[in-house]
């Protein structure tokens, strides 16, 4: 706890935010002697065939910082996110996550990914396993935890997202919002130092979005480093320290959430936000 706090407080780029006795029960690594990791991305290029999706991205996320990536579909946000834990392999550029250089040819990808949690648009819970097993399978099989140890931690994480009572259910018996909160709990059982969210609420029924965003806000308040691809401008404005607007594979504008969303400077940002915030025109 002390380690993560001192790191996040020493980070000048960070806007202040309610600091955190909330860490208890939120599943943030602070209580376990690990720390939040930062991300540094320089000169990142990624093409699929002839289609250049990322055209030279430079950006960083400080330890404990929450950064929201916004932009139209096809702008490269998800690809950028997927390059960070190397679900996609970049064509050029470097990415470092904590002490791992993700783009180094000799990087131990499995070890690196254990420190990076990821939440997908389609949840991707394992349908043949119960909710509890979804949360214990990796700690047990990969980290070698005992069943009891893994289950204690998993139940604590499920409790933090308010779903401990559903631990024996199968994923297909849960609503989309519940599945996504289980996915968050599952990622947190690995005690990651960075969490990636890839449009976590885009596939949800509107009435279940709020619970997922609330779980994410709780995590942010506890000091987790978060990189979030989202269309939820309200969430970005309230929770994000910084917002990065991408268009056609480039970072067009970035800055404090209130500034980018409330008073965008670039025409493309202004145009995008106008269409997102006022879809019917005014």
């Amino acid at each position: 706890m002390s380690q993560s706090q001192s790191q996040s407080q020493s980070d000048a780029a960070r806007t202040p935010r309610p600091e955190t006795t909330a860490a208890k029960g939120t599943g943030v690594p602070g209580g376990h002697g690990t720390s939040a990791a930062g991300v540094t991305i320089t000169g990142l290029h990624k093409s699929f065939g002839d289609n250049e999706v990322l055209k030279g991205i430079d950006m960083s996320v400080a330890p404990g910082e929450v950064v929201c990536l916004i932009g139209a579909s096809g702008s490269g946000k998800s690809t950028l996110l997927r390059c960070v834990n190397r679900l996609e392999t970049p064509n050029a550029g470097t990415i470092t996550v904590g002490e791992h250089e993700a783009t180094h040819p000799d990087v131990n990808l499995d070890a690196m990914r254990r420190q990076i949690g990821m939440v997908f648009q389609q949840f991707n819970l394992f349908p043949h396993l119960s909710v509890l097993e979804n949360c214990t399978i990796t700690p047990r099989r990969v980290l070698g935890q005992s069943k009891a140890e893994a289950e204690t931690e998993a139940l604590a994480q499920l409790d933090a997202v308010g779903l401990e009572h559903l631990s024996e259910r199968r994923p297909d018996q849960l609503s989309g919002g519940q599945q996504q909160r289980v996915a968050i709990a599952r990622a947190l059982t690995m005690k990651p130092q960075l969490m990636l969210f890839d449009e976590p609420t885009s596939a949800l029924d509107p009435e279940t979005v709020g619970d997922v965003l609330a779980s994410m806000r709780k995590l942010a308040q506890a000091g987790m480093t978060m990189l979030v691809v989202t269309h939820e401008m309200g969430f970005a404005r309230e929770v994000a320290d910084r917002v990065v607007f991408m268009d056609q594979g480039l970072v067009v504008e970035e800055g404090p959430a209130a500034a980018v969303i409330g008073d965008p400077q670039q025409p493309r940002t202004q145009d995008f936000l106008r269409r997102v915030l006022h879809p019917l025109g005014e």
Partner: protein
Amino acid sequence: MAMTTRDRARLSLGIQAGIFLAVVIVLAILIDWTAIRGSFFAFENLGPMFPEIITVGLFNTVQYTVVGFVFGLLGGTLLALMRMSSFPVYRWVATAYIEFFRGIPAILVFIALGFGASLAFGWNLSTLQIAGSALAIVASAYIAETLRAGLQAVPKGQLEAARALGMPAWRAMVTIQIPQAFRIVLPPLTNEAILLTKDSSLIFVVGMAGGAAELTKMGRDGINIYQAGLTPLVVAGFCYLLLTVPLSLLARRMEHRNPRTAKK
């Protein structure tokens, strides 16, 4: 006068029932029931077929099928992995094997093993060895395609989620992909077992000693032994149904079971 939807449905049912009744009556008049009964249902002379038709025939059919299926499953798994390999030569070999043995009649494989193996290599194979390996050779080609389709039917997001959690590739395959693929392929594998049960009868082209006889062989022999026309074949047919109908019901139940596999 307009008909309501319900009137139409009633009329349709009435017409179907009428046709059915007419066909039954015509058949009942035309068919020579005495001849049918004497040729196919003369069970009274068949006492001596039992218990050997069960203890020998059914037993051997099950034995050949099980051996063929088990080795077919092993071979099919190997071929499926080869077809998905990153080494192109493996893919070519597996594809050639699968296309070849799915494309030729299974009876050719029985003949090749039953007669060809002893001519070419001087092997003296037992009936179980011939039947088991012929079935395994053919089944592995079909099973390979079933398994590959099952593995590829597991959504890509499942493997991504596993890898993102830090599972090594082999662990993700063993813990996440294979268990889900297994549930997908159980019904088609059961159907494959049904086909194999019936194909085991092809061993007749090779011929076999009495103790190695399976159901079809015993049925055919019975035609000459008992004064019961073709009734021994009917008995053999019912014995196959004893095996295949439960398998079929099992496959159907598994298809309707609560889906425990990711949907796209």
